[in-house]
């Protein structure tokens, strides 16, 4: 076990510890808060990168917490999917945090910044934990941390709509957690194990003995993760929560948090349940049709929105459908596309939310029709928004094209051209609601507050530029991340 192996634990633990130090710093050394939070996330990101290198060169590895062997101790399994997810989560959240350091001063009441960092770090640590863990109960613990922290960063603004949205989220998320806990209990009941590897070894035998228990566990799992990942029609909490939260929160919630549940479900479905389960139950068909509904309905709802953040939130409902669709078409290309879309959509949606946040920060305008001419007065956020929107539509040489290419190719290859056409239809709908905004932004005279925005701080410009360049970079050179994604999909499918 070399030093890199320990990084897998440290990548989770360090942000967790830092999270609890934040209130202390906030009281005694206020200036330390921001650097400490950035440092913790930066470390996590570097650790994820080191692990990715390790996994790509030497293959996946297990890490035993406290050196306790699996049935007793918690085990982490660092494989392709895990490092891919960890890299996405830490990388994008780091960029968002840079933006947040400035934006939050404006959105939050003074004195709350330290608490915000606490919640933010908890959120990221729990997501990295979910990506890495190989223990189903540990997964549940991280799910809970994530849910509470997410609820916290929505409600921290303490306006009426934020609290309402947070409450809605809390109730539905608790429902999801309950389903998840029941599912875990059922699995534990029939197998006697909590470790993924052990459960998956015991399940084929248990399937024969207690088929109904496992069926129920699967159903509960689907609902639990579905609610948390906002899979249509379980998405009702998302538009309110994501649109009312402070912009960095929206970016991290829409870009990252809903994806991690999709990834967790993916891990459970492909790594824990035996392959026979897909023939025995229509779980993938259900997932496929739910994602189809999500894609169509999410885009439809987005078209009629007037509020920029609400529109982006509904767009996320549609985009999470892409991810699930990629997971549910059992084909290496589609799965690669789905996994890749986790990363690509994280970048695009984070950028779009941050750009929207920049518009709101500088002008206070949220209505789409009032953003006329914003491209002239705020070129950098408007350019970022344009790149993000084009990536959403899937214009070639943006990263959105790459994931769409793999998804459609997978749908065709898997003999399901219907779903290929669903993705195309949705791209058209994306065009219908994103492009008029861009046109509006660049053609037309700015009026009112849009004409004279306050200057955008550098800390908020740089993340937009980084994400915008990233979207183009990973569209031009997808091989940077594609190797990881395609190996992850092959490993999951056992190829």
């Amino acid at each position, binding site marked *: 076990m070399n030093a890199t192996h320990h990084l897998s634990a440290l990548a989770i633990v360090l942000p967790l510890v830092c999270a609890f130090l934040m209130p202390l710093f906030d009281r005694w050394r206020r200036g330390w808060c921001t650097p400490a939070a950035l440092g913790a996330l930066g470390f996590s990101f570097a650790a994820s990168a080191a692990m990715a290198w390790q996994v790509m060169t030497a293959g996946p590895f297990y890490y035993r917490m406290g050196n306790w062997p699996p049935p007793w101790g918690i085990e982490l399994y660092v494989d392709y999917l895990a490092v891919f997810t960890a890299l996405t989560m830490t990388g994008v959240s780091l960029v968002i945090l840079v933006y947040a350091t400035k934006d939050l001063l404006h959105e939050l009441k003074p004195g709350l910044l330290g608490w915000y960092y606490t919640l933010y770090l908890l959120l990221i640590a729990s997501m990295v934990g979910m990506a890495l863990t190989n223990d189903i109960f540990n997964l549940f613990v991280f799910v809970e941390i994530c849910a509470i922290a997410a609820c916290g960063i929505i409600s921290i603004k303490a306006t009426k709509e934020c609290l309402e949205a947070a409450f809605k989220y809390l109730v539905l998320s608790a429902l999801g957690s309950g389903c998840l806990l029941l599912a875990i209990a059922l699995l534990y009941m029939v197998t006697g194990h909590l470790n993924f590897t052990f459960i998956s070894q015991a399940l084929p035998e248990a399937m024969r003995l207690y088929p109904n228990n496992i069926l129920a566990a699967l159903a509960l799992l689907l609902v639990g993760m579905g609610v948390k990942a906002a899979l249509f029609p379980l998405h009702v909490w998302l538009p309110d929560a994501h649109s009312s939260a402070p912009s960095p929160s929206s970016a991290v919630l829409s870009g990252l948090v809903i994806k991690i549940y999709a990834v967790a479900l993916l891990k459970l479905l492909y790594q824990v349940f035996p392959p026979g389960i897909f023939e025995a139950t229509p779980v993938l068909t259900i997932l496929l049709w739910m994602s189809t509904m999500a894609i169509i309905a999410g885009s439809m709802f987005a078209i009629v929105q007037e509020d920029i953040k609400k529109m982006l939130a509904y767009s996320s409902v549609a985009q999470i459908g892409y991810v699930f669709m990629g997971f549910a078409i059992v084909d290496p290309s589609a799965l690669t596309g789905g996994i890749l879309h986790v990363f690509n959509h994280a970048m695009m949606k984070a950028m779009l939310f941050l750009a929207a946040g920049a518009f709101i920060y500088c002008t206070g305008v949220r209505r789409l029709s009032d953003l006329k001419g914003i491209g002239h007065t705020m070129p950098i956020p408007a350019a970022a928004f344009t790149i993000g929107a084009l990536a959403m539509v*899937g*214009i070639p040489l943006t990263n959105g094209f790459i994931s769409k290419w793999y998804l459609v190719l997978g749908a065709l290859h898997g003999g399901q051209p219907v779903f290929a056409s669903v993705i195309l239809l949705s791209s058209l709908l994306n065009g*219908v609601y994103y*492009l008029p905004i861009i046109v509006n932004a660049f053609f037309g005279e700015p009026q009112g507050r849009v004409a004279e925005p306050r200057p955008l701080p550098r800390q908020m410009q740089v993340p937009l530029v980084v994400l915008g360049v990233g979207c183009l970079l990973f569209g*031009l050179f997808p091989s940077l991340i594609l190797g990881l994604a395609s190996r992850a999909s092959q490993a999951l499918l056992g190829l």
Partner: protein
Amino acid sequence: MGMATSFLPVWIVMFPMVMTLVIYYVEQHNERMRNALAVATSVVTFLSVLSLYPYIMAGNIVEYSMFQLLPNLEISFRVDILSFSLALLSSFVWMLVSIYSIDYMCKEHGCNRYYPVLIITLASCMGIFLAGDLFTLFVFFELMSLISYVLVVHEESLEALRAGYKYLIMTIIGGLALFFGIIITFELGGSVSLGGPALITVPSSLAFFAFISFLIGFGMKAGMFPLHVWLPDAHPVAPSPASALLSGIMLKTGAYGLLRVIFHIFTPGMLQDAGWMIILAVVAIITILLGSAVAITQDDLKRRLAYSSVGQMGYILLGMSILTERAIIGNIFHIFSHAFMKSTLFLAAGAIILKTGKRSIRELGGIGRQMPFTMFAFTLAALSMIGIPPLSGFLSKWTLSLGAMDAGLPYFVLVLLVSSLLNGLYYLPIIIAAFFGAEEGHEHGLVKISEAPYKMLIPIAILAVSCLLFGLLPTNLPFDLSRVAADYLLRGGF
């Protein structure tokens, strides 16, 4: 037949692209420099394309592979005789239009947007024609379509924005259809290269979807019925030089794409056996008749020209659906002659609009006496449209008709004749009124209208003379290129 790797195709595409940035930088300081650079860029691009002439005519193919995006999916360039012909045509017309733009645009707003967009559209157009695989073609096709939106809505009037919205949505639909077609081709053929053997040789339902997708994607751009709806709105609202390019050149990218699809993705034989070409033939006939018939009812000069483009693109599609050698020659030659004719007409219309501000045909009485030179060029191009010998339009119609006869489809000739009659019905009244009609406005004591500046007249003159020369001379460059290109397409070599 030789193959060679050369950087020249990349240069032809990248040079205008880089110059776009230079122009964007320069125009912040110096407007004259901007105009000069725009013209210089298009001239250099044209000369660069021209420099390939001896090499291509000797029967060689130039290839260059830039980089691989995904496995088996790369950005590559490949210049064969067809690519070369169209690139030469486009860069030539582009050069004239950018010269024309200098005086036309000087009274317009937003020139600092117009010129960079003009040049980057040239780059993407070159990219389409020189693309070595379907994916590269698609990338540049999308780039051109999206960027030319800026040209369409240049006026920023409500009308322009509405037309632009229609254009944008149709572009997205077309782009997605192309994407679908390309990905099916990739799935069935394992590659999207245009250089290799045909990729889909067995008819299947998926292959049929691919064919329909290509038809939608490229047909949308080519103004094919029923996807032409954006064209009559979008082309007239653009500034006249941009209309000339939109109608004269950019429509042809759709036709070019379809040619590539028919000959390189599928095989003509397979398409005919499977009966899929009938679809193309039927929509082509409807496009011809509809475009010409609706043009008669239009009163706006540029709108009438735009509908005429729909009809003319129908000829090109029809030639493609017949697939005999002479039909293909006629088809490619019509791409040339229509480019010359339609740019002449739009540029002449632009000169009239600039000088008089009149767009309505009813108000154009006597304009031929005030602007004799412009109207003479207009007349030449219009007569060529109708197909009066010895103009170039006659030669393309003649060749197309011969091709239809070869295929034993005489009723196609009938369609061409009816359409010519319709063309006569909507072009001749303009000309008659212009030269013999009563002048309007004189009794109100308006200022005397004179000819446009010479920088606008020279491009019009060159294009109008081309219409005449390329019909008058039995052997001319476009016709030779069309012949060799048709030969190359049908026999797969020289």
